């Protein structure tokens, strides 16, 4: 038996690539495209999932055309399915099983803090428990039912995992613009996302400026930036002025993606905080230690 807390997704990808049979029992199923393609390539696949189709993706399940799919309702007499078990028969005839906390989702495999153990039939110490796990899966599979993917799609399409307050009625909106806004300070790395959520605003920094950027010309704004941030080069001041101007000129109904920034050679995932719709005008907020002076009510 081996314990894994990191690189679980990579390990599963490696083993799926060598699998000729697979038995999976997971509460949540929404794997990455690469993992899904490997599952599609396994000729003998049995999959049991929880019938929670606000999260479980029926469109991905549908791609497993040759798989035997089963599901267990949350109100099942034996309890809802909460297990995360992968049993693979490898090309050499041995069995490899992963048990732990990781669901077969992008987050479970690659992002979350998970803890799993691996047991293998070709390890004499694990052989008995591998047999027990296979027997457990067979019983589970027999007790489960065939999911109705058409109904699952209706549920998946109509219900979001994250619920938002209803959108207000909009008047005629001639032109919606789309934006991406970093919610993290470039200089300090501090995240402003908690403030955005708590106050239902989005904001940018440069909070030492003493003027209202919505009431001055571009030239006046550039001059103010250079006077306030004396370490800025002329180009940096121009860039800052352009950024502030874009933010000031956000229009009601514009859509803003709120996320962390990233670089071209970055390997780490990008965190998507949320999405905002602008519902009020720009305003200056002075005296805040938490954020810049430019905020847009949402």
């Amino acid at each position, binding site marked *: 038996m081996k314990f894994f807390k990191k690189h679980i997704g990579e390990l599963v990808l490696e083993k799926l690539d060598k699998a000729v049979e697979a038995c999976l029992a997971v509460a949540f199923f929404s794997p990455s495209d690469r993992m899904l393609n490997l599952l599609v390539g396994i000729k003998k696949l049995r999959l049991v999932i929880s019938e929670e189709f606000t999260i479980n993706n029926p469109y991905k399940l549908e791609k497993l055309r040759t798989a035997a799919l089963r599901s267990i309702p949350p109100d099942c007499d034996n309890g809802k399915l909460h297990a995360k078990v992968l049993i693979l028969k490898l090309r050499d005839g041995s069995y490899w099983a992963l048990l732990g906390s990781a669901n077969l989702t992008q987050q479970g495999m690659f992002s979350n803090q998970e803890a799993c153990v691996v047991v293998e039939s070709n390890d004499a110490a694990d052989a008995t428990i591998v047999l027990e796990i296979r027997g457990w899966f067979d019983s589970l599979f027999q007790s489960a039912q065939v999911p109705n993917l058409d109904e699952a799609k209706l549920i998946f399409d109509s219900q979001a995992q*994250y619920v938002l307050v209803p959108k207000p009625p909009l008047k005629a909106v001639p032109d919606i613009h789309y934006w991406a806004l970093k919610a993290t300070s470039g200089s300090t790395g501090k995240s402003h996302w908690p403030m955005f959520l708590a106050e*239902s605003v989005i904001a940018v920094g440069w909070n030492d400026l003493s003027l209202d950027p919505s009431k001055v010309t571009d030239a006046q704004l550039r001059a103010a930036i250079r006077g306030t941030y004396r370490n800025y080069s002329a180009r940096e001041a121009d860039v800052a002025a352009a950024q502030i101007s874009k933010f000031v000129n956000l229009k009601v109904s514009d859509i803003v993606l709120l996320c962390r920034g990233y670089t071209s050679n970055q390997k780490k995932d990008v*965190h998507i*905080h949320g999405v905002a719709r602008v519902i009020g005008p720009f305003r200056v907020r002075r005296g805040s230690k938490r954020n810049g002076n430019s905020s847009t009510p949402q």
Partner: protein
Amino acid sequence: MIQKIDLDLPKDQVADALRKQALRRTIHSLKKSDFDRLATNLKEFGVHIQV
């Protein structure tokens, strides 16, 4: 109005969707098609944009 998502996406997936290999400045203009691609990716993780 803010919809909370709180989800990590692979960087290449985000960069490809937004057609931006880096996101370093504070605010970036997006095309609707770029945003829609990202929304499609989010939907695969069970997140439906509702703003």
